[in-house]
């Protein structure tokens, strides 16, 4: 080894490297730092033994402790399911009315229902059941298919116009325009009548009344009160699923749009649907 060179001013040894006449002084890192570094090496060796570490051709070394992050998640999920089981068992044996009436069950159902709602329902019905055009608001006081706990449970379980579920509820409004059941003038008149119904104004004198009595009253009822058995919306109020202007009403009479809701009976288990029913009922519109 070459003779160690020292910096003439400080007397510190140099590393022997020189850049543009400047020599680097050899100032070693502190001893404690080196020892900590050695300790981390020893730690790493121990880690390889105890924890999953090196890949092999067919898998990986599992480590003596048998730890895996997925296994940990699995056991935590199992523990959570075990903790929920007590409540879910009680939900199984109880009707939605019983759940809603029992403060403890209700609190649990509201919490569980809120989570299930966000996961499954909020994409269409919006957070808190705020609703959107073509997706009914669940927080107001009008229900297409009924707003009791049982109605809500049935709707969630079987869906609306969901052909894969035999229990689903179906209804269809005739295409008065497309199928030429009414001519354009009649549609215009009956739309005027519906606008007047909704505004609560004088509708009786309108020529559309006779057409309404002939074509619409069977489902939408006398005076536009609606009929929940067939999902016919009330026409005599301020809540509109599509468009409450005259143009919107004309469009709906000509070629009606029909909403479809999937049946959740096969996707969610019974207890989740019960929790959802209790939650939706409590959004502000439950009957």
């Amino acid at each position, binding site marked *: 080894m070459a003779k160690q*060179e*020292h910096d*003439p*001013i*400080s*007397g*510190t*040894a140099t590393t022997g490297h020189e850049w543009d006449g400047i020599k680097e002084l050899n100032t070693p890192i502190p001893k404690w730092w080196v020892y900590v570094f050695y300790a981390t090496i020893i730690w790493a060796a121990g880690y390889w033994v105890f924890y999953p570490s090196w890949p092999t051709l067919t898998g990986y070394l599992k480590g003596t402790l048998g730890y895996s992050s997925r296994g940990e998640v699995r056991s935590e999920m199992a523990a959570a399911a075990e903790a929920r089981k007590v409540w879910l068992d009680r939900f199984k044996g109880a009707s939605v009315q019983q759940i809603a009436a029992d403060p403890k069950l209700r609190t649990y159902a509201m919490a569980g229902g809120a989570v299930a709602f966000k996961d499954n329902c909020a994409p269409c019905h*919006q*957070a*808190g*059941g*705020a*609703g959107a055009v073509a997706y009914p*608001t669940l*927080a*107001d*006081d*009008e229900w297409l298919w009924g707003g009791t706990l049982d109605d809500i449970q049935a709707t969630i379980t079987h869906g609306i116009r969901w052909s894969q579920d035999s229990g689903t509820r179906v209804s269809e409004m005739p295409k008065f325009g497309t199928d030429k059941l009414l001519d354009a003038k009649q549609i215009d008149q009956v739309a005027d009548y519906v606008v007047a119904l909704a505004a609560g104004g004088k509708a009786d004198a309108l020529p559309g009344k006779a057409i309404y009595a002939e074509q619409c009253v069977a489902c939408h009822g006398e005076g536009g009160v609606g009929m929940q058995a067939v999902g016919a919306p*009330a026409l005599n*109020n*301020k*809540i509109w699923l599509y468009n409450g202007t005259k143009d919107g009403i004309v469009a709906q009479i000509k070629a009606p749009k029909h909403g479809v809701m999937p049946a959740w009976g096969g996707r969610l288990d019974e207890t989740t649907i019960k929790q959802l029913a209790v939650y939706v009922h*409590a959004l*502000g*519109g439950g009957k």
Partner: protein
Amino acid sequence: MTDLAPPPSPPGAPPTAARKKKKGAASLYAAHEKVHPRQVSGRFRTIKWVVDVVLVGFFLVCPWLRWDRGPGVPDQAILLDMAGRRGYLLDVEIWPQEVYYLTGVLILGAIGLFLATALLGRVWCGFTCIQTVFTDIFQWIEYRIEGDRAARQKLDAGPWTLGKIARKTVKTILWLVVSLIVSHTWLIYFNDAPTATRAVLDGSASAEFYGYLALFAGTTFLLAGYAREQVCIYMCPWPRFQAAMFDEDSLIVTYETWRGEPRGPARAGQAFEGRGHCVDCTMCIQVCPTGIDIRDGSQLACIGCGLCIDACDQIMTRVGLPPGLITYDSTANQVARSKGEPTRVRLVRPRTVLYAGVMVAVLTVMVAALVLRSRFDVNVLHERSPLFVTMSDGSIRNGYTVKVLNMDRGPHSFALTTEGVAGARLSVIGHGAGDGAGVDLPVEGDSVGTFRVYVSAEGGARSRALAFVVTERSSGHTRRYETIFAGP
């Protein structure tokens, strides 16, 4: 110490063979020199003992005092129940949102510190600070086991004999015992004292409790046993700015330079004419808990404990000179004394009057706030999704969550009404709808009642100001909460 560095060689000159290793490089860190304070007796030592006993006694006894608050409520006179989120001080009960009382106490403490420092110098540091008190106790144990200053120095310098090991072990064990008692006492201000103590002793306390016990015992052991004066000199921020509280009339521990200098050793029969009264016995340095020389003048490391005064007075008496060469006096008086002018103690000064005034003001505000405080509070959350709902009759409905905090022990009934939106109709799930009189909300004692509230009104402006007014039925106290009524 190393020799001075040799003169630098001219640049480019080959290094001399003699220069084997770096020389003269100053270390950035000064090695710690252990302070071995000598035991002393006298006026200030007695005051310190009395203060130590009173403060430590108060600290140890307080959590064991009981205070009956009725069934189901902790009966500890002073308790900070973190899990139950309540603070108890005799009949005063503090909820988490009332933590500003604690702020008030801290402000009082800070101004009190300013006032005490302006009047009497660093009395807090020298007599009442927790670091000083526990260091005192630890040093007293050390003194009983290892002997006084000279014996301890000899012991520390000597080899590890059996006797030394025994003494050091006994001392460490006693320190640990004291640390554990201190730590446990601190913890039982936050837990029921008898329950927690029993749990600790029979091993059934939680791992957290044992962890905190070890933490606070460890810090007490370390700070009072080993760090000692280094806490005051290097860690504590207070000495850094306490100089701003002093003025020339503050009473501080001071050395009478005009009388003591020039100093020199006293010999038997020697007269003191033509020289100072300081006999340079270094007793003031030996007894100093921070190891400083007070004769260098007022300094950051002086905690103002006055032990050097005790030490010096003994020596002065022995050599037949008047005591008070080191004394508790103001800078102004020292100047006056040196000129032979009359001295005076000025306790009432603009600074002290100001501090006292602020203290009285803060205290008044705090007491008034405590006496007049209402035992209920209201929080309202406006529903955000949906922000509003259009009802079938065209009206707009907003949802709110109203929380009524009943901080009283008994149940109360509260009337809920709204203000600000004309024709607003109120309904509370499970509690009916409200006409002019409002809806009754019953809330159990010492709990928070949560209510789901709907307000309906005719559609109109996008957003209107709405206020909920909650009136406690029996007392008539009201709380107002401003929120909004959203519309399309």
